[in-house]
């Protein structure tokens, strides 16, 4: 009877420990070995505590108590990652990869859908598309972050997601001295960025100041306002390019931040094209007419409105797709941080 009671007490304790152990241990069936080891420890301790050398219910009880609580045992198995914010250092690179991969996918799918919409003449959905990208990115960011925080708290490592075959292969890999890595190519041509940014800056100022009255005075006031908005975006992008040029071939993190801001500016600038796309009648077509060859604004003929909208849609798609280059550069700059 006493032996049954001892077994019962130990099994109950081990059952509680098993419940508290992290899932990655249970997935690997490794928990069975862990529990067997803990059981052996309890028996050994109970034997030692007993004067006769035979474990008793009382000594088993003391041995179990000395093991610590099931929560504290499980906590030790979870404490294996190196903390970095709320996501462990081991999972951090994978978190960033998943985040950038999903962000790229969301943008790509939305842009493709929008291009299809434009081709079929469904222009009202453009703004919905931009909103969709923003909401999609926000939801993806929140969900992925929560998942990775939970995985970090549970002590998951990247190898917990590998197949048995991969793990075996990894285990057999002999210890090797770290090979010298090939030197990386410079990630930026500062002069090019400064020249490109300056041109954008000059053109942006030109659109805002609108210095040629003999041309600009012929245009619709609303159209000129849209041009000024476009100028603001051009100046911002130009300043960002010049900033990256001035930072030069160092501080990859600063470059990543500037690229991230550029993505925001590019996506925001789409709104100006959408506004223009919805008002084809204000778009000027200037031609020289009359005996004095003076410039006259004849505007777009209604028959060409659809073509105008398609061209605007293509511009939107190109701008949205150009953000992929910024995403790629953010990803690429990771390897320069080491």
């Amino acid at each position: 009877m006493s032996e049954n009671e001892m077994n019962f007490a130990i099994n109950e304790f081990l059952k509680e420990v098993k419940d508290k152990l992290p899932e990655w241990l249970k997935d690997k069936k490794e928990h069975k070995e862990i529990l067997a080891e803990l059981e052996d420890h309890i028996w050994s301790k109970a034997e030692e505590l007993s004067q006769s050398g035979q474990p008793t219910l009382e000594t088993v009880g003391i041995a179990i108590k000395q093991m610590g609580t099931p929560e504290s045992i499980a906590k030790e198995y979870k404490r294996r990652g190196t903390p970095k914010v709320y996501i462990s250092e081991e999972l951090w690179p994978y978190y960033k990869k998943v985040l950038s991969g999903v962000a790229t996918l969301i943008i790509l799918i939305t842009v493709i859908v929008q291009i299809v919409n434009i081709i079929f003449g469904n222009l009202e959905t453009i703004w919905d598309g931009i909103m969709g990208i923003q909401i999609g990115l926000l939801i993806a960011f929140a969900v992925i972050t929560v998942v990775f925080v939970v995985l970090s708290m549970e002590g998951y490592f990247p190898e917990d997601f590998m197949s048995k075959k991969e793990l075996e292969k990894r285990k057999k890999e002999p210890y090797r001295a770290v090979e010298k890595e090939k030197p990386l190519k410079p990630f930026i041509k500062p002069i090019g960025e400064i020249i490109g940014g300056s041109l954008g800056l000059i053109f942006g100022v030109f659109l805002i100041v609108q210095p040629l009255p003999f041309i600009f005075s012929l245009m619709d006031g609303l159209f000129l306002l849209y041009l000024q908005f476009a100028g603001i975006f051009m100046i911002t992008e130009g300043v960002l390019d010049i900033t990256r040029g001035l930072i030069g071939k160092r501080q990859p993190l600063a470059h990543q931040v500037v690229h991230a801001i550029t993505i925001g500016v590019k996506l925001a600038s789409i709104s100006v094209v959408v506004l223009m796309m919805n008002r084809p009648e204000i778009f000027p077509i200037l031609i020289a007419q009359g005996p004095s060859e003076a410039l006259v604004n004849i505007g777009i003929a209604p028959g060409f409105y659809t073509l105008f909208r398609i061209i605007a849609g293509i511009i939107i798609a190109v701008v949205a797709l150009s953000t992929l280059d910024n995403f790629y550069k953010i990803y690429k700059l990771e390897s320069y941080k080491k």
Partner: protein
Amino acid sequence: MIAIIKRVKELGSNALIASREFRDYVEKQETEINRGISSLCILSTIIQSDKKELHGYKILKDLTEKTNEMLVIEEGTLYPMLRKLEHDKIISSRKEESGRKRKFYSMTGYGKQVFNHLAGFYSKLTEAVAPLFDVKVDLKQDKYFYCPMCANKIDLSNKDLKFCTICGFNIEQELIERGLRNE
């Protein structure tokens, strides 16, 4: 890891130990200090055992005895630590084929090299900080040589060793210069 403060009984109501704030702070600090050296002490216990392999219960028992109960690792903490060391290829295990089928742990070749380096670093660090606490540390330099480059602990009885296995430093030349080995 059990902090010593956890085992100290409150003997007087005016003693500092009666303060919850003091107890919590000291316990946290002691646990931090213990955490750093526990793995090293576990490895040392395995290396110093007669058969060069031990099961979990014996590791804990030997460790408690050898450190005069100053370093006490909780049962629930030991096994996760052993698992981690095994996962990091520092130790390996074998299961007893009969009886209780206990798991015995021994050092791997790679683990021994890691241990020697960490033991050397810890020894040199202890020696360096000893004057801060007005204590003296004997590194037994007649038995061991500590690599001047990486602090690797090298057993002087190994006459064949010419270069440090960790950093490749020419030990033989250094030992000859110091008069510890003949040309």
